[in-house]
């Protein structure tokens, strides 16, 4: 369970371009559920995902993971939590060009110090699961948009995280590929993972997969939705 208590995030504090991306957000997200964050651009969805995923610390307020406050932990511990607990699928996919699909998927597991063979096996399993076993040796810049996104999903899953976070995952996909993405998400949900998806695409937040829709505007939660 992820709990946010009165969380605020201010960028460029004290400078002329200071702005508050989140203002007093309180939210509880149950484990093994699928939550969609919706709202217009600039509403704070991406910032909220960053804070939930331990990529940044809130300016004020607290974030707890299964009852343990994580928002004040030093970077090292925060990184460890991010690596073990969260898998990220970015809007731009953020794959590293020049590396193969397999190498990209392996990257999050390198700092764990796991044996190389184990990392490679896990990465191959994730690619196979997403129907990309034939593309493992392909450089990511040669892949189609849909394939690149599946590689990004495989990378998010390589450390077997409990929570998958996706930011505008269908922004660069056509309808067919968007549906395919949601099918993959449904499979992950059935696996018992927690899903948190930020999107203003109705295909995502109106999907039967989604248990709860949280609506945001101007850095605030305007509708926390209902759900499990």
């Amino acid at each position: 369970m992820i709990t946010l208590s009165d969380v605020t995030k201010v960028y460029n504090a004290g400078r002329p371009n200071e702005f508050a991306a989140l203002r007093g957000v309180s939210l509880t997200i149950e484990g093994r559920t699928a939550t969609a964050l919706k709202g217009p651009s600039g509403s704070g969805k991406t910032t909220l995902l960053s804070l939930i995923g331990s990529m940044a610390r809130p300016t004020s307020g607290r974030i707890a993971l299964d009852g343990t406050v994580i928002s004040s932990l030093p970077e090292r511990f925060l990184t460890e939590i991010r690596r073990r607990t969260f898998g990220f699928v970015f809007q731009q996919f953020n794959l590293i060009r020049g590396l193969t699909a397999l190498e990209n998927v392996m990257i999050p597991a390198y700092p764990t110090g796991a044996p190389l063979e184990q990392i490679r096996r896990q990465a191959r399993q994730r690619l196979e699961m997403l129907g990309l076993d034939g593309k493992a040796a392909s450089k990511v810049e040669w892949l189609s948009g849909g394939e690149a996104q599946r590689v990004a999903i495989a990378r998010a899953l390589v450390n077997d995280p409990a929570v998958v976070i996706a930011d505008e995952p269908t922004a660069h996909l056509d309808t067919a590929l968007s549906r395919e993405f949601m099918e993959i998400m449904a499979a992950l949900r059935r696996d018992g993972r927690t899903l948190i998806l930020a999107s203003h695409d109705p295909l995502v937040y109106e999907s039967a997969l989604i248990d709860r829709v949280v609506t945001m505007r101007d850095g605030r939660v305007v509708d926390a939705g209902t759900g499990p």
Partner: protein
Amino acid sequence: MIPPGVRRHARIIGYVLPSLARRWRKNTAVVVVYGLVIFLLASVVFLSQSLTGESLAGLAREPEIIVQKLSAGRHELIPVGALPSVTRIVGVRSGRARLWAYYTDPATRETLALVVPDTPRLDAGQMLAGPEFLRRRSLSVGDVVHLKTHTGASLALTVAGAIAPATALESAALLHVSAPAFRDLVGIADGLAMDLVLRVRNARELPTIATKITQALPDARPIIRGELVRTYKSVFSWRSGVIIGVLLVPVLAFIIFAWDKAAGLGVEERREIGILKAVGWETGDVILMKCYEAGVVSLAAFALGTALAVASLAVPRSPIIVPALTGWSTLYPSFMPTATVGAYQVATLFCLTVFPYLVATVIPAWRAATIDPDMVMRGS
């Protein structure tokens, strides 16, 4: 069982190597340019060491004290009859008058060192020479060499054998001749010698013996071998120091360039660091990666530069460094200094080149690595 900490390093190195290969054009260019800068520095260090070694090797066999006569502050020929007055000094084991001179061969314009050896005794018409001299002149035992005496007459000397040289310098420029031939060639009269040399029993008595020599021969100057060693060392240290000082300018320029490049990490590199951090790499992992990257690049450049420098010592008259360091050797025919690569020199070079590069590239990378990983989420 390999500890996870060690495996973490291995995984990061496993990421670094293909990562360097991805940017092989840029990295190869850096290795080549930096390798050339290191080559220049290494050439100076190794050559300076070689020349000092050559000179000191020659000095090592010299007697402990040389006595020169001075006249108006200049070195002058000394009467052989002065020898007993210094060999009588307590502590002097033996002494002899030396006949040696520089001789410029008019035929070849080469300046040679003529020495009358104590042993073996040579007949008036015989000479010995170093193998390099014999090879250069295509001479073998029994051949006759014609040299001009100081009066302009021709003197025929038969090659009686080869000297076993201790250094390349001796091999190329040393001739052993008999005393009569020597006096004919350079015009030093009977009863005069270039200097006197003394062997002493106890090195700790050298200063006392030197004082007694100046009392016995007030117009003579005793030179203790240790002073010569110090002079040689300081001459080469000064020369190499000046050149290293000059070469530090391009080294510094390269390091500033490296800093500048690293400080302004390319968009692609900053994006990559952001992605790595976003997917679970710590700042420490990123810095470690950059350390390994800089380590591989600088070690490759160091190996390239050092190898080129060692190889260049095998090329006679390297056009850049050798003339600057061996200007004094125009007195001699060309010679090849023996390559000397000592651990101390390699360690000095390593400290002068690899560490500054590591610092110049890792500190800016550390600054880039401390960005919040959510930069990637926000696409900035």
